[in-house]
């Protein structure tokens, strides 16, 4: 188990009810982490609709998750 820092935005923030939390997890990748959080919080967005950022940069879903990582799941964007 390690702890990672997760920030939520937009629909994910509303569905979670908070903007950030620390998660103790055994997930080894962002993909595993999102599956875990989705099951726990009932997020309606599927992973395929999201991108993920780790440490403030877009990252592959298969990136090994380090302890202390800052993770953001990015819902479909809609600027403009």
């Amino acid at each position, binding site marked *: 188990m390690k702890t990672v820092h997760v*920030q939520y*935005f*937009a*629909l994910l*923030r*509303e569905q979670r009810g908070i903007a950030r939390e620390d998660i103790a997890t055994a997930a080894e*990748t*962002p*993909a595993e982490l*999102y*599956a875990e959080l989705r099951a726990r919080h009932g997020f*309606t*967005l*599927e*992973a*395929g*609709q*999201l*991108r993920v*950022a780790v440490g*403030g*940069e*877009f990252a*592959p*879903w*298969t990136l090994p998750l380090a302890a202390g990582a800052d993770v*953001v799941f*990015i*819902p*479909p*964007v*809609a*600027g*403009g």
Partner: protein
Amino acid sequence: MNFRISATPLDLDALKRSLSDVHAGACVTFEGWVRNHNEGKPVLTLEYESYAVLAEREGERILAEARERFPVTAAVCIHRIGHLALGDLAVWAGVSAAHRGAAFDACRYLIDETKARVPIWKKEYYADGATQWINCATRGEFAGAVPPA
């Protein structure tokens, strides 16, 4: 920084001045305004939210791409966040260039890529009391989204 997320109204005169250059013969600007309808539904107000640190990084990459692809003199893009009313300015993109073709093409590139790639989200508030985070009800809105393995 030439790509910024702003929580306050934009100073268009200052933005325009930042594009000035005696080598530039053309200046094209794009403004995105909050309009009163979207896909047939009456919109009352909007809320924009952003993951600003990544938005500004991705935005700077878009500006660098535009400068690489088109012979431009200057390029700037600013996106508002927060609550906006009808008619408010949501996004401003401006490009100056020696010639108009590059200015039009680069400005279009900026706004197209910003809409497709920059982590900014829009929630619409409708006349009937409903709200919606745009693009979240459908899949596949993401240019470059890679499903998890």
